[in-house]
């Protein structure tokens, strides 16, 4: 048992100076933390699917399983003063009396605070 739901998307933060910070280094598979993002110069942010090669690199570098897919990518462009909203929403169902604990599908959330957000399921489809 993994004990966690494998990621199907990773993020890339693109900056106004043309540089970018990906969640996972495409060369090494090592992870960069979300807290390392410089939100002051953030120009675009998106969720991107894993390629099989990157998934292998992450498994090797981080010993973590992620799921490569052909899902569409989603990105949002930020204007000055915009505040990014990006996270994964996880659900756990607790069955009272009998049954068990079920881990539901992860929803990837993306948008700008104060504006309509996108909610993406693990198949890359927009959900409400």
């Amino acid at each position, binding site marked *: 048992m993994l*004990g966690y739901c494998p*990621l199907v998307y990773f993020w890339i933060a693109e900056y106004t100076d043309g540089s970018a910070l990906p969640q996972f280094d495409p060369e090494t598979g090592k992870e960069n*933390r979300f*807290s390392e993002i410089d939100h002051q110069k953030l120009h675009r942010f998106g969720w991107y699917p894993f390629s099989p090669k990157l998934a292998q690199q992450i498994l090797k570098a981080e*010993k973590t399983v992620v799921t490569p897919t052909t899902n569409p990518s989603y990105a949002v462009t930020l204007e000055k003063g915009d505040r990014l909203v990006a996270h994964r929403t996880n*659900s*756990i169902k607790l069955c*009272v009396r009998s049954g068990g604990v079920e881990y539901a599908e992860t929803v990837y959330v993306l948008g700008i605070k104060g504006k309509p957000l996108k909610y993406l399921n693990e198949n890359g489809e927009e959900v409400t």
Partner: protein
Amino acid sequence: MEETEKMVATVNVQQAVGGSDGSPGTYNNVTASTRLQTKDQFAPADTGYPIPIPVSGFKYSYWIHVCLDLAGTFTQINNVRFYSDGAVGWSFGTGGELRRGNRDSGDHGCPMPTEYDLATGTEADTGDSIEDGADGHGYYNGQTTPTANVADDTEGSPATIDSTDHTSTGKTKAVVLQCKVANDAVQGEQADETLSFKYDEI
């Protein structure tokens, strides 16, 4: 695989029991089920402590503290919400309900372990009501509305249990649950009921 190698949180649902106020005896991973009983114990398969149907008034289960245990490696977890499907299908009788501890403002979750309040009552008979001024849950019984009906917590309008930004492993605040049963409730083991936690992670 070592916990420190993951960049994804490992989250377990835990029920705290025993110990003393401010210091739970144990946190138990809920892997199969949980049960509301007239005893402070984590024993999902034990049917020996049902909630009796009262002759008059109400009987209560012992309240239970249910929190999330955050392990693994993650940048931030927050916005822990709790909800039902909007219709708890158990026979509670008139005025009965599955209720949770409720705060007049802010998060409805009970900070763990600081505000943990050992469940009390008379075993195999009734728990003390969360709302009881003397023997109730100390984090809730002074509130204007100390409890809320879990059936009113829905996916579209969930109860916020913990809005804290958790940046390291530990426990979230706990939802405190209790059954309230009236004299016209129907005796017998009740149907399965699903309750949900939702949280944001990055």
